[in-house]
C-alpha cells in the first residue's frame, strides 16, 4: 500500500469522508447486524484514526456487514459505511490478512470463481465449493433436498457462450489490484 496509511487508502478507495464522522452512532443503532459485530460500524472510523489497522482488518465487522445501505441512507454526514467496509474487505483479501470471519471470504471467492468459469452463478456448485473449503458438507442438506424436489436446484449449470470478455475482465481485474 506504499506509504499512505490505511485511513488515507480507505478514504480514497471508498470515496467516503470518514473523518467527518462525529460518532453519533445512528448507524450502529440502525444496523441490522450490529449486534453480531465485534466492532461497532462507526468505531471502525475511530480505529482508522488511531491507525489500529490490524484490529480492523482482522475484525468480523467488515465481513458481517450485509451492505444493506441503511447506515449510508441515514448518516447525517452521508458516510456510506458499506463502501468503507468494501474497501477494507478488498484490502484485507489483497494483503492476505485472515480475520475472525472465515466463512464470508470463502463464500465470495467461491462465488466469483464460479462466474469466472461459467459466467453465471450455479447454486449447487457454489455450495459444494464453499462447504469443501469451510466444512459442514451436510449443512442445510434437508432444505437442499426439498428444493431439489421442487426443481429449484438444477444440477447442471448454465454456461455463457461468449466467455472471452469475461475471462479478459477477470484478468484485468487481477492486474488492476
Amino acid at each position, binding site marked *: 500500500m506504499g506509504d499512505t496509511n490505511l485511513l488515507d487508502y480507505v478514504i480514497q478507495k471508498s470515496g467516503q469522508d470518514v*473523518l*467527518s464522522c*462525529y*460518532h453519533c452512532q445512528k448507524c450502529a443503532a440502525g444496523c441490522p447486524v450490529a449486534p453480531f459485530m465485534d466492532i461497532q460500524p*462507526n*468505531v471502525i472510523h*475511530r480505529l482508522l484514526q488511531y491507525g489500529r489497522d490490524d484490529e480492523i482488518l482482522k475484525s468480523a465487522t467488515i465481513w458481517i456487514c450485509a451492505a444493506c445501505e441503511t447506515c449510508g441512507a441515514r448518516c447525517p454526514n452521508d458516510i456510506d459505511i458499506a463502501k468503507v467496509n468494501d474497501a477494507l474487505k478488498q484490502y484485507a483479501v489483497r494483503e492476505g490478512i485472515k480475520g475472525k470471519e472465515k466463512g464470508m471470504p470463502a463464500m465470495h471467492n467461491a462465488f466469483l470463481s464460479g462466474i469466472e468459469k461459467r459466467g453465471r452463478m450455479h447454486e449447487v456448485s457454489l455450495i459444494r465449493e464453499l462447504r469443501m473449503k469451510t466444512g459442514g458438507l451436510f449443512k442445510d442438506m434437508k432444505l437442499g433436498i426439498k428444493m431439489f424436489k421442487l426443481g429449484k436446484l438444477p444440477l447442471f449449470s448454465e454456461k455463457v457462450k461468449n466467455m472471452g470478455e469475461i475471462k479478459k475482465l477477470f484478468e484485468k481485474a487481477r492486474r488492476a489490484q
Partner: protein
Amino acid sequence: MPQKKIGVFVCHCGINIASVVQIEELVKRLQESSGVYYATDYKYMCSEPGQASIRDAIKEKELDGIVVACCSPSLHELTFRRTSSSVDLNPYLCEIANIREHCSWVHSDSTLATEKAQEIIETIVEKVRLDEALDPIKVPVNKRAMVIGGGISGIQSALDIADSGYPVILVEREAAIGGHMAELSDTFLTLEKSSELLSAKQREVSVHSNIQLLTYSEVEDLDGYVGNFKATIKKKAKMVDWDKCDGCGKCIAVCPVKVPFDQEHPLGKENAIYLPLLEAGPKRVVIDKGICQHFSGECSECQTACPKSAIHFDEQDETLEEEIGAVVVATGYSMYPKDRIGEYGVDGCEDVIDGLQFERMLAAWERGEGPLRRPSDGKTPRDVVFVQCSGSRDPEHAMPYCSRICCMYTVKEAMVYRKAVPDGQAYVFYIDIRTGGKGCEEFTQGGIADNRLIYMRGKVSKLYREGDKVVVWGVDTLMGKKVEIAADLVVLATATVPSPGAKELAQRLKVSADDYGFFQEVHPKLRPVESPTAGIFLSGAARAPMDIPESIMHASGAASKVLALFSQDDISHEPIVAFVDEDYCSGCGVCVETCPYGARELQGRKRVAKVIEVLCQGCGACIAACPNGACQQRNFQAEQCLYMLDAAL
C-alpha cells in the same frame, strides 16, 4: 372636603373571578355602600370595551376617583391609570382592588368569597377617598455617558453612543484599549486576524470627537442617580512624560522585573516598564507601580537608562470628578487560574497553558515572530492536547456553568496550530461540543475533518510531566478505554470568569453581581442589558461568558438603552414617594441611615430631613423608622391607612 364621587368597576375576568364571586350580588351591595357613588361590572374590564365603559362612566358621572376590582395591580394598574388620564382623571386617583389572586383564586366558598371581595373593594374605596392627585416627578438628564472597560464591548458601546452625537468618557484600566481581543490570533468563523479587526475600531475611538479616552484609569466611586451620576475616576500615574518619550525601549531592556508568561497580562507587558499596544500615535512606555521594584526596593535602572530623562517616579495619581447621566459596564472577562486545578499538575508544568496564552503564541507566529515555541524549552510542539471544560461545568471544584466560548476557540486554535505546524497532531478531550450559533457547527465539523483533529469524548483526569513530555490521562468513551497521550503541549480551555476586581467595582457602582462576580441583569430573558440600578447598563462578557459577536450585540444593546434614556430631556419618576412635614421633623437622622436607596439627607440650617424624590422607591422604611411621624408617603398617609383598616375589619 366634599364627598368624592367614586366609581367601582368589577371585572368577571371571564370565569376567574365570576366562578367564585357572585358578581351581581357584589355590585348590588356596592351600590348601597356609603362610599360608592357608582358601581358596575363587565366580563373583561381590561378589554377595549371594558375600558370604554370606564371612560364613559367617568365622563357621564363626573367621577372624582375610581376603583377597578380585578386582578393584581402588577398586571393592569398602568392600563387603567392610562385610561383614567385619557379622560382627564388624575391617574393616581385610580386604584386597583385585587379580587382575583387575593380572593377568587384562593377561595371556593362563594358566599364568603363575595363578602371578602366586598371588603377588599371597600378598603380601596377608602384609599381613593383620601388620595391626592399627583404628577410624576421630572428629573433632568445629563446626556453624557461613561463606559467602564476598553475591550471590544466597551469600544462598541462608546462608538454607538458617540456616533449618535452624545459625549462619552471611555475609562480603561490598562494603558491601551483592546482588551483580550488584542491578544487573539485569528477569530472564528472567518479566521480574520483579530488585531486587524480591532485596530479599525481602536483608531475610530482615538479620533472620535465625542469620545474622551481615559486610559490607565479606574473608576473609584459612583454617586447620584439615573441621569445625574457623579463618577470619581483615578488616573494612575504613568511616571513617564509622554511628550519626551519616543518609545526607544532602552528602559525596558534594563528592567529587572519579568512578568511570568502564564500570568494574565496585557499584550506587550513583559516587564514593570513596557510599551502598551497603543491604538494610534507613537509608541510610549508606561510603568506599573504594582510590580515596579522602585517602590518595593530601590531600583531606578530605567530612569538612568533613559536618554530623554522622561521617567520621574514622583508623578502622583490624579483624581477626576465627572458628571454623567448613564454608565455602561464593559469590564469583560478573564481566565480561571489554571493552577487552581491541582490534578492538572500545573505546579511544575510550564507546558500546560490556557487558551488565552496559546492565542498569544499563535498570534506571535502569525506576526512572523518565528515558529511556534513552547514555554519550557522553545521546541515546536508536535503533539498538542486540548483539555475542554477545565474548571467549567465543575460544580464540585470550580465553576458550575458552561463557559460557552471554549468549544469554538479550541477548534479554531487547533486549525491555526495546524497551519503553524502542518505535521502536528491536535487531540481534543471534550464532554460535549457546544457550538450553537450561526455557522458555528459547520465551522467546527469542517475544521475537525479537514485538519484531522482527533476529538475524544472523556474528561481528562490527570496531567503530569514525564521527561520532556506532558502525559495526559483521558478516556475515549466511544471505545470505553483509557487513553494516555504523551503531549508536547497541553492547552487547558479554562473557565471564563469575570475580570479581576469586578466584584469590588459592582459594590462601588451599587450594582449587584452574582456569586461568581458576573454583573446581574434585571431580567435574564426580557432585560438582559440593564442592571437593576436604573441608568447603569451591562455590555459584553461582564454579564456572562460570551464570544465577540455576542459582545458586539450586547454592547450595541446597552448603547441603545443609553440612547433611549438620552432621548428624553428629563425622565419621570413615580410620585408615590415619601415626604417630610418639616414642622414635626427633629432632624434626628434615623431616616437617613434606614433608607436603602440613599434617598435621604439632612439639609439646610434647621438640619431637617429632605427626600431626594428621584431616588425614593416608595418602600416605606423611613416612614416606619421615623420616631415622630414627621415622615409620610403620598397616597399612603397614616390617616388613609387607618380608614382602610376600618373598612377592611
